[in-house]
């Protein structure tokens, strides 16, 4: 073996990395000189000049646009006066108007496009003053808004019963105290200015909730009317009051609905009328309460209030803008003719030029360029190079990494395996790309952490299956469904908080035990075909439970379909039960990343328990039975029993896993939702370095990090590359399924080592 590997790589695997290293070297040198150029006085002055012309351009462009639009509107009005207006086609009208607009624009450009600056230093100092003021207020405003959004999301995500919090007659302090129980940060002094806003929010939410509940109960009563009265003809000829009396006497439910008297009466009258004609009106449509759309909560800034500090800074900002505007008017006097709305747009445009979240050299350069500010011809290439410094650096690092990986290919792949090396490299590239597209890597890392705690336990469920020899346990959906059953049982008996979470886990695990046992008996009869069988069993069990969810005798109106009174809804919000409970437990922020401490701790605990098990006598026997059944049998171990142990364990962990998953997601989804989870989990563990016959805890952790990392970054970057439209969604599906496919090719075709 050693002879062969020594001969082969000489040509290809030496030249390729050397070429890559040279390329990377060139890029890095270019990048370093770019950064050096950024620091020179010349470039700075040049860039400042560009800023001035960008501001002027923004101003003049605003004016030109307004003139052009005005000309178009005038032309249109003129045409409308014409008698023959309606005879003209739309295209013709557009053509005429556009012609007029372009003419006006050309004329305006002649006048305003190249404004003559007389007092340049004055303009520049005004620009700088405004820029400074913007920076001061802008970052503060951003921080405050972020703090506000945090509180907002905490409250809205975790409070389900607003009515109790902000009942009529409760004074503001009481409401604040109640809110503070959910979001303790609100009670801190620094957030005092926000309290009034949140009180308003609570009251608004209470009103909304009341309205929603009213609508629901009204709908329910209407349903009673539609179904409970055998013959409406008996009610014929009664006037409103008599009808109401008769209805309330006969139907006690209606009596409770005094509040909806008008709606009920008009419905009843309509039914009487229809009955007399021999028709029957249908029941009202099912309310949409069960099919809530699942989306992330966005903060609503209507309830935001600024601190005094910020308010002052905003005043200063206004003053600075006024000064700048005065300067601009001296240069382009006609700016004063703009309407107030366009004045606002003008300010926004100038703000966009001067206030940049990322005020690095290249960001400034690119912004000014987008405002048609040209650098001075002599220094243009320098500025260009300087602005490209960061991208050159990224490209240089990327190529350098590629070169290193090719150079150390053999030791790397021997140590980490081909798939892990490639996926890890891919992940690093995605991070570089994210940097290139100015996507916040920090924020996405937070996202990855969250998803790790969400999927971790599910991926862990794959491990005992692989160890005991049944390979990738695609039938873990059986465990998932047991866990979901645990969740709906917890909802049925109205449990909340940690008891609900614990109940769902234990209950799911208990249900998973016999199911996993039966499933393992099936697998023991199908040795050698486990992957096919488990995929099939997983899918068919999901389908079976689609019937099951409809048939099971749940009664809590919160979870069943309202109209038919039976069958579970598809999506169950866990707000107010145990949504985000673990993830928020001991959660803290580092570098702006929210760390879901509780979730990660729980994942760690589960991993530790599984690790302990794998070192126990039973665990060792199970691993041996999986990796070499004949060896295990020769040591007096019943291979079938070990496979049962592993399968049951995998199913039980999957049951706990789906509870954790739903907790992190905030919703429990029934019916066909769990179908794909087996694929996700198996891909993650394969990427982590496991094979179909060998898996370790480290494979689970690395795998879930890499898989989720690639998914989160890949999606974001796909979104940036193909902004808007449905393409990013297509990309999302392609990326996630592509990873799954790649991971599955790494199973080695079912080979047992």
């Amino acid at each position: 073996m050693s002879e062969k590997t020594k001969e082969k790589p000489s040509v290809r695997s030496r030249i390729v990395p050397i070429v890559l290293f040279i390329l990377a070297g060139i890029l890095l040198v270019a990048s370093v000189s770019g950064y050096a150029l950024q620091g020179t006085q010349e470039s700075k002055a040049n860039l400042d000049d560009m800023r001035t012309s960008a501001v002027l351009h923004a101003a003049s462009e605003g004016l030109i646009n307004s003139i052009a639009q005005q000309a178009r509107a005038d032309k249109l009005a003129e045409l409308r006066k014409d008698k023959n207006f309606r005879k003209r086609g739309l295209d013709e009208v557009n053509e005429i108007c556009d012609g007029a607009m372009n003419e006006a624009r050309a004329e305006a450009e002649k006048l305003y496009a190249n404004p003559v600056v007389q007092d340049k230093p004055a303009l520049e100092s005004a620009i700088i003053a405004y820029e400074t003021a913007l920076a001061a207020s802008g970052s503060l405003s951003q921080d405050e808004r972020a703090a506000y959004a945090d509180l907002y999301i905490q409250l809205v995500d975790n409070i389900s019963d607003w009515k109790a919090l902000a009942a009529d007659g409760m004074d503001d302090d009481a409401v604040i105290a109640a809110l503070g129980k959910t979001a303790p940060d609100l009670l801190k002094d620094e957030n005092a200015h926000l309290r009034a806003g949140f009180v308003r929010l609570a009251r608004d939410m209470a009103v909304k909730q009341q309205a929603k509940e009213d609508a629901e109960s009204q709908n329910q009563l209407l349903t009673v009317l539609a179904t409970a009265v055998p013959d409406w003809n008996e009610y014929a000829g009664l006037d409103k009051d008599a009808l109401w009396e008769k209805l309330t006497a006969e139907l006690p439910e209606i009596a409770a609905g005094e509040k909806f008297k008008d709606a009920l009466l008009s419905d009843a009258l309509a039914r009487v009328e229809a009955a007399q004609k021999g028709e029957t009106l249908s029941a009202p449509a099912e309310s949409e309460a069960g099919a809530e759309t699942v989306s992330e909560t966005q903060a609503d800034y209507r309830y935001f209030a600024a601190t005094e500090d910020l308010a002052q800074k905003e005043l200063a900002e206004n003053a600075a803008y006024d000064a700048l505007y005065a300067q601009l008017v001296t240069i382009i006097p006609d700016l004063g003719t703009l309407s107030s709305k366009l004045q606002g747009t003008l300010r926004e445009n100038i703000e966009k030029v001067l206030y940049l979240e990322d005020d690095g050299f290249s960001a400034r350069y690119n912004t000014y360029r987008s405002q048609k500010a040209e650098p001075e011809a002599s220094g243009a290439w320098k500025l260009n190079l300087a602005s490209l410094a960061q991208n050159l650096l990224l490209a240089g690092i990327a190529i350098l990494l590629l070169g290193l990986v090719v150079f150390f290919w053999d030791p790397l792949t021997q140590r980490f395996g081909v798939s892990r090396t490639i996926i890890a490299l891919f992940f690093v590239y995605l991070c570089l790309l994210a940097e290139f597209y100015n996507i916040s890597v920090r924020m996405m890392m937070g996202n990855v952490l969250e998803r790790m705690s969400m999927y971790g336990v599910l991926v862990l469920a794959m491990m005992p299956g692989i160890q005991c020899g049944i390979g990738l346990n695609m039938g873990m959906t059986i465990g998932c469904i047991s866990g979901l059953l645990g969740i709906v049982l917890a909802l049925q008996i109205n449990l909340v908080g940690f008891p609900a979470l614990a109940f769902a886990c234990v209950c799911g695990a208990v249900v998973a035990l016999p199911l996993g046992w039966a499933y393992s008996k099936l697998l023991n009869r199908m040795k050698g075909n486990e992957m096919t069988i488990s995929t099939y069993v997983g899918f068919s069990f999901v389908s079976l439970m689609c019937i099951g969810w409809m048939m099971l005798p749940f009664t809590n109106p919160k979870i069943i379909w309202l109209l038919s009174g039976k069958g579970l809804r598809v999506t169950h919000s866990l707000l107010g039960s145990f949504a985000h409970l673990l993830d928020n437990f001991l959660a803290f922020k580092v570098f702006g990343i929210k760390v879901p401490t509780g979730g990660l701790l729980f994942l760690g605990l589960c991993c530790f328990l599984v690790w302990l098990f794998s070192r126990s006598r039973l665990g060792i026997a199970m691993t041996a039975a999986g990796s070499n059944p004949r060896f295990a049998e020769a040591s007096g171990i019943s291979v079938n029993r070990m496979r049962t142990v592993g399968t049951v364990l995998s199913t039980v962990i999957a049951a706990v896993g789906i509870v954790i998953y739903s907790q992190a997601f905030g919703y429990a989804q029934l019916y066909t939702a769990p179908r794909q989870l087996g694929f996700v989990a198996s891909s993650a563990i394969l990427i982590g370095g496991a094979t179909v016959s060998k898996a370790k805890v480290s494979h689970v952790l690395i795998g879930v990090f890499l898989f989720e990392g690639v998914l989160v970054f890949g999606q974001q970057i796909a979104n940036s590359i193909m902004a808007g439209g449905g393409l990013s969604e297509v990309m999302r599906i392609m990326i996630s399924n592509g990873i799954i496919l790649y991971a599955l090719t790494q199973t080695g075709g079912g080979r047992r080592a």
Partner: protein
Amino acid sequence: MASEFILEMNHITKLYGSNAVLKDVSLKIRPGEIHALLGENGAGKSTLMNVLFGMPVIHSTGGFEGEVIFDGQKIAIASPMDAMEKGIGMVHQEFMLIPGFSVTDNIKLNREITKAWPVSKLLGKDLEFLDTKTMAKDARKALDDVGMSIEEYTLVSGLPVGHMQFIEIAREIDKSGMKLLVFDEPTAVLTESEAQQLLDVMKSIAAKGIAIIFITHRLDEVMNAADSVTILRDGQLVSSFPKAETSPEKLAALMIGRGSESVIQVEKRKEAVEGGVAMSIRDLWVNMPGEVDKGISLDVREGEILGIGGLAGQGKIGIPNGVMGLYEAIGEVELFGQKLPLGDAGAALRAGLAMVSEDRRGVGLLLDQSIENNIAFTAMQVKGSFMKKLLWQKDARAIRRYAEEMIKELDIRCTSPAQPVGTLSGGNQQKVCVARALALDPKFLFVSEPTRGIDIGAKQLVLETLVRLNREKGMTIVMVSSELQELRSICDRIAIVAEGKVVDILKVDASDTAFGLAMSGVKSKEGEGA
């Protein structure tokens, strides 16, 4: 006729790497003679035939030295197909017949007789019709030649194995231009009367002028049918002579040979072991594929090293596997007077038995696990050793300590006890297997083919370890091996198994003749009997 011989293979030498499997072997066969080719397993018979047929395995490993003269011409045979065209045929040991086809179809497979018709004239020979009548006639004639009365249109599936062997022969003699036929152990699966019939068929084929190379282990058949005999041993030509000059005893002695010295020098016990019976096996039938036992009865004395020898495929390996419960077995086995349930490996291990398997990589080891885990595994599972009291955890420190001790004692060459056994050499893997068995602290040890595929140094060490365990700890050992020399160097007695039964139990110093005869199923006067 161009020459006296139809086939001359002169000075054939074949190397696999640096290992010579054939050393200057010559073989000369006259037309119309039955030439028996004898030798133990691994003597080089198959390699010689592979050379004759130009098998790919020969060409891909660097060819061979020497010359092959067939029918008076020096030839180079490129492939088995080439050999067939030149008139050399083979009757295989495993039947190469298609069960769903009729006897005729099988005989004529790939040599069908066809009739042309207009479409085939246009579109080629592949679309011609089969001339079933002529084919049936040819098949009938071939069947008659081999003395088979079955109808030529019967399907092959469902025929008894004996019939299949004859159909195989019929197919070969149906080929026109056949000059030399090789029979590779044709009688192994036949009943006695069928075997006799086969020998008669061979004689009648030979009478037509076709030469036959007859590979067999059964010396009586050689005496019955062969005209001349060539004996190979360890890749070397031992002797070649007409049958008339020999006897079964002489053949047996030549096959075994006392050529090489003992593998290791062990001080022989002065007195025979006279302990009680450690294990008594009565009428043991084991269904192990390729190593079927049909009624083994054997007593193992306490404190002895008993060898079990015999040719491959005769059932010697079935004995330990059957007793240990790895393969389906019936019969009665008593260990130190206690009845041992069969088919339950756990019970056998708990009773104090241990085994070092012949299938080292398959049954003997967890290849991707560390040395220490392999050593500790069985003891941990069977006896609960190496465990902590808390939480059923393994005691990694105790395992490490024991593994290090074993590595020193057995001289296992490794970087550390944590090295995966898959990366060790064969000899060191075998030592790990021995260490694993020893961790059980067994009273009775089965060692199956302990020296297969390991180098000479490791061989010595493994054998010395076995002797030491026997002498120092009084462990009763049963060693199964195909290498008679090894058995003779360390065992007290040697049982020879042939065709699933114990033929004879011999002392180590019994004559080669006695061993040779026992291996071909004949009991000699020297043995103590089975």
